């Protein structure tokens, strides 16, 4: 009779690790970091319209940054990279946040029109500010934790438009260089939180593919100096 020792049977997971890669502004930084840890990104860098780039140890799956928590939570991707802004906005998604990758640094801010007092005036006279944002939950949490009442207006497109034509008194948005704000005559009034790219993992994959995920985490930590 063979003696069963803890951890020996273990699961034999299927195929290469699936890594969710964010398209958009985090893509270049992500591919650079993946190159640095020895993941082949040539196919993902090509002009290909493909969404999935199979590899021997790691398969890259490209998607919108805001979809990364959805895929990782469900286990459709084992691990992923996305911005802290996305994780904060979708804080009810159960994913393990393993590492701050340091790149893609930007700030979540409250901004208003230069020289315009409508934020303060609405607060004084109406008791609440009207805030346009793509991040309603981050905005609501920020104002709640600072004891102010706001009406958040969720918009999908160019958020800078909202205060310019009177939809809102101000905006809560992600700012990298601040150029877009400046070009639209907007200025930062409050800084809410600083956001960087994060390495996340599915809860079950983190348990069942521990060696692979720990190895990748260690290499990523080294490559990003975290």
């Amino acid at each position: 009779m063979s003696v069963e020792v803890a951890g020996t049977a273990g699961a034999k997971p299927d195929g290469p690790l699936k890594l969710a890669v964010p398209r958009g502004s985090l893509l270049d930084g992500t591919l650079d970091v993946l190159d640095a840890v020895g993941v082949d990104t040539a196919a993902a860098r090509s002009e290909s319209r493909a969404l999935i780039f199979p590899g021997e140890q790691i398969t890259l799956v490209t998607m919108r940054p805001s979809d990364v928590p959805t895929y990782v939570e469900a286990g459709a991707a084992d691990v992923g990279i996305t911005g802290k802004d996305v994780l904060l906005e979708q804080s009810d998604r159960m994913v393990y946040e393993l590492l701050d990758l340091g790149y893609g640094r930007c700030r979540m801010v409250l901004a208003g029109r230069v020289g315009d007092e409508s934020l303060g005036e609405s607060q004084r006279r109406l008791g609440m500010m009207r805030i346009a944002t793509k991040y309603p939950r981050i905005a609501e949490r920020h104002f709640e934790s600072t004891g102010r009442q706001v009406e958040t207006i969720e918009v999908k497109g160019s958020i800078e438009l909202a205060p310019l034509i009177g939809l809102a008194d101000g905006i809560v948005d992600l700012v990298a260089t601040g150029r877009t704000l400046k070009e639209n005559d907007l200025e930062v009034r409050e800084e809410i939180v600083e956001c960087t790219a994060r390495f996340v993992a599915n809860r079950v994959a983190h348990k069942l593919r521990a060696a692979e995920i720990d190895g990748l985490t260690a290499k990523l930590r080294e490559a990003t100096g975290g």
Partner: protein
Amino acid sequence: MIHPIPPGTRDILPEEMGELRRLHRALIEVFEGHGYGEVATPAIEYDEVLARGDGRTANSAYRFFDERGDLLALRSDMTVPIARLVASRFGGAEPPLRFSYLANAFRAVRPQRGQMREFTQAGVELIGAPAPAGTVEVVEVLEATLDAAGLDRAVIGLGDADLFRQLLTELGVEGESRNAILGRLAMHDLVGLEVELSRAGIAAEQVDTCVALSQLRGGREVLDQARAIGGAAVERATARIGETVAALEQRGVAGRVQVDLGLLRDLGYYSGAILEVYDPAIGHVLGGGGRYDELLRRFGVDLPAAGFALYLERVHVAQMEESRRGGGS
């Protein structure tokens, strides 16, 4: 005409019901074969009775007043109702007591794949059997249950609910920062965990120790890795886990077990050994359990206890995914 039903609930039609019934019968057979008689309790209980077991029923979505103005709540699991049942109906009985159940429970989760607001749990409670023997028996039943469900690849994570609580006490972390740290740990937010630990005034190397500790999972060897990290709390927790693992190995039922020092269950009543169940075919946890040696005392019965519960619908999803993957093999 289409008539809506509340979010997170669903109808079950004959084909699915047939498969679920087969699963029900297989599980109940395992439970009864191990001496765990099936019990049923009301789906609605007095809110204050449920709150006695888990002070966090405030997050129960379904609370309402009856015609007398009493506050009722839908149960969010079966462990608390069974603790209540043991105290009221088996007060003088000779322990250990063994019960099993297959029952619906209700939670205010965001409905999504594999997670509903009304869901079925299948599990056992072993009342009056202390660690490690009681824990070992529960793991043994859990193994047999997973075998009966045909989930050959399923893994049982075994951790210790007191490890980080005791470690933080050892480090002198109390009050709000303690809760913040345990919260980060439960969510496995390692970046936030590091921030909270530093904010609590813990030295940099001990911060690294705590984070490293939460990442230790695998075979028995992780207990040695943990011991190398040192400290009285780690020593005690690894001794408890080691004792359980040794007993499991002796009974030949340790094969599925993975030691996991980062395990934290989000229910408030666990102490000592805690369990979680995974299957590689699905990304959600299949179930969990562990010891709750203090829970019965809240109902006036001072007995150690342990148990587990599987989310039946997720087990069913895992069965389907596994058969798809294996082509039925």
